[in-house]
């Protein structure tokens, strides 16, 4: 039986009718809401291209049913920048050539967001470990690590000027 979902995505109220119970959250975001920045790269929760922020946690939206998002607060890649001001993680990926084809990038950035909350001053080893759930085929991860470390530095200095 199809459901109605009430949720909040990128700060906006969303009401979606006729949602099949089997619909994946990633498809609700992409196909219903037009938020195509979140990508699908596998069938088995391995690649992380679908990573979003759900009630404050990074989750893989291909592995959550859309109906579970009732009452939740969701942020996708499209909600990360404030107006035209990029989040330091987004800026870091740009500065450090942390992307090539860009397909894994939104998921990487959303994972990195959680990573830097948990480890504000991560080592390279911690960055690599915490990003194990996000696959990249283009970059060999080297510049992704640089990007996250750079962003960590930026966030730290923003904190200290507050």
């Amino acid at each position, binding site marked *: 039986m199809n459901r109605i979902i009430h949720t909040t995505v990128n700060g906006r109220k969303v009401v979606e009718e006729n949602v099949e119970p089997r619909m994946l959250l990633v498809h609700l975001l992409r*196909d219903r809401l037009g*938020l195509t920045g979140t990508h699908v790269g596998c069938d088995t929760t*391995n690649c992380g291209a679908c990573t979003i922020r759900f009630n404050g946690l990074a989750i893989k939206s291909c592995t959550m049913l859309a109906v579970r998002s009732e009452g939740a607060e969701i942020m996708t*890649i499209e909600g990360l920048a404030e107006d035209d001001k990029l989040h330091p993680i987004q800026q870091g990926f740009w500065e450090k*050539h942390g992307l090539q084809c860009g397909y894994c990038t939104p998921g990487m950035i959303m994972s990195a967001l959680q990573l830097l909350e948990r480890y504000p001053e991560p080592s390279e080893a911690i960055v690599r470990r915490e990003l194990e759930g996000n696959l990249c085929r283009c970059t060999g991860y080297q*510049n992704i690590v640089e990007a996250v470390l750079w962003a960590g530095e930026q966030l730290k200095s923003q904190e200290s000027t507050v």
Partner: protein
Amino acid sequence: MADPLIGQSIKRREDLKYVTGCGTYVDDLTLPGMLFASFVRSPHAHAKVLSVDGSRVLEHPKGIEVLTGRDAVPLAGPMPVYSYREAAAIKKPDYRCLAHDRVRFVGEPVAVVAATDRYAAEDVAERVRVEYEPLDPIMDPEQSLAPGAQKLHDNLDNNVGLRIEREGGDMAAAFREADFVFKKRFRMHRHAGSPIEPRGCVAQYNSGTKELTLTCSTQIPHILKTHLSEILDFPEFRIRVIAPDVGGGFGNKLQIPPEVVALCLLAMKARRPVKWIETRRESLMAFLHARDQIHDVEIPMKNDGTILGVKAQMTVDAGGYLDARISGPSLGAGMWLPGPYQVKGYAIDINVVMTNKCPYGAYRGFGSQMGALVIERSVDLIARQLGIDPVAMRQKNLIKETPYKTVTGHEFDSGDYMAGLDKALAMVDYPELRKEQARLREEGRYLGIGVAMAVEGAGWNTYTAAMAQHYVPTLDYATVTMRMDTSGNVKVLIGDVACGTGHATTAAQVAADATGLPIDTIEIVEGDTAITPYDSGTRAARFSAVVLPAVALAGQSLKEKVCRVGAHLLEGAEADMEITAGKVHVRGTPSRNLPVSRVARVAYSEVATLPRDIPAGLEATESFKAPVSGLCITWPYAIHIPVVEVDIETGMVRFLRYAIVHDCGNEVNPMIVEGQVVGGTAQGVGGTLLEELVYDDDGQLLTTSFMDYLVPTATDIPHFEVCHLQTPAPQIPGGYKGMGEGGCVYTYAAVANAVADAIEPLGVEITSTPLSPPRLLALLREAKGRG
């Protein structure tokens, strides 16, 4: 005069859209009335197709259309196949977009359905009833070659799709002069590129204009268009192929996907746009496989370590059909056997044989990594046998001077391989590493140092038009159009595709330097066949060596046109005009200038004020033809030295460091080049240690998800130390060689050498990949059993 942008690691101009989720990949496209396709695929590796019943599809409320293999036979011709250099020799198995009478690999498409949403499409696909009569599959390429083997294709005499026999230099002399002949079998396993974005396409047919429009995740929009025209007998000028943002290609997306052909037929039948996006499972089963080869090599040697020649009997496991490009990695593997060494001769005998597996196609490296694995492992093994240091043996045999005419019939244009090797050895402090290795061995730890080097080929002079179904000696070329608008901004139109390769930035750097215009007024447009000139696509590392020179020529030409109008407006001589930072001025007198925007306005809107002999508008189209014939246009090279530790209890390989010295000539954007080197090497690491496509004896693919097919994660890949050397390509304007194959060519050899070096005291001989933990443990157990 502004500082040239060429050579600067400027930030990429295309990244804003990617970091904000505004990229447009094929699955992001929605069209009014669009349907979703789902393919019905064979569960058998080999079977007759007795019947296909799609009647229940239309009974489903969301089921709109169905197409079977038999429906498709009169509507679409066979899939194309090329043969590099061995023209008439390639066989033509009956390879159709949908199987109609027989299936030859698990996952082969048999029918396709269209439904109103992607979930319903899978429901509806399950309603198609296919009756099969299973046949015994052939999973071993050597069994498939054996006389009397079951024929996989009735229209062929046997299962050999192509035979290639080539030799060069003087192998007879090499054998005559030999003190001994080293003989060994090497094997590289089946694996695949697996870009994170799988294949996908949206096809739509407009019955009013009779136009077929495809948005497809492809590296070759123009070539795809030409092939579709042939296969569908559809006028080429009414087909439009648009490559949107492509989430990784790596050569795999050079395929002419049978699914795309079927999708076109479905779109024409349904009279509604249809979208197909493959699942990862489908991708692993039915997208292109690669790399699966067996080489039996004979290397005539002198006792002092001189390599006299290389001879190989090669078997390539092509899968159930011949992918269009299968002859490339087959030939490539053979041509790369002599490596960077001075040898007297080479001889290759290649059997490209079919089995009941997914077809084998192009993947980064295109066979060169197999040739490199064979020769570089052989050098290490022979050095061991002779009691010579493997580095010293390399130095003895390395090509010392370029240009160098190889026995394979090419000329390595420029490069100092000895200096590159020295540099790499210095980077890791090789003598110290050997001491470290000895110390650790006494502690029962196994450190390994792998050295591997090769000369890569960039810019393959292969077919550049789909019509070259027989190989004709051809030259690669690129045509670029630069079009200035009425405000003085420029669009640069290129028919290839950026699939992570940074073209929007590097082409703009070259265009800015060539025209004198600010880079912010230049946009690169790629991938749409309606807009861009014909181009053979993003492949073979050709962008730097072939496309960028065309960009420079078009820029020069456009600049001349702007200067011509500017000279008239400034009342100066055309030959004295220059453009700097977007202003046209007399050379040496920058104060007397006009902004290019003013010149453009005149050229487009105030044409009456121009003299008769100055044409209106500001647009230039120029072509660059490769200046060198032969297999490749230019020859980058690299040396890889990984240092590993092997845990003999777990079979895990840990990288302690990985040093790379590479030389791809002049670099437009060193940051982008390094990204390619690192990315390619990472794929090589995955391919050597982790990734494996495994079939069981019944032909079922066991690795159908990323849980089993292990694409490396951030903890599997080490930090790479990269040193860039730049020996310009003497015959390429700009001196660029290209680096798109990245580190893929060298990694298998380097890592295999490192692992072998580590566990050599335990009596393990490494001659095949992958070196995954279970396989290493098996080798270790076996060596222990022998010893």
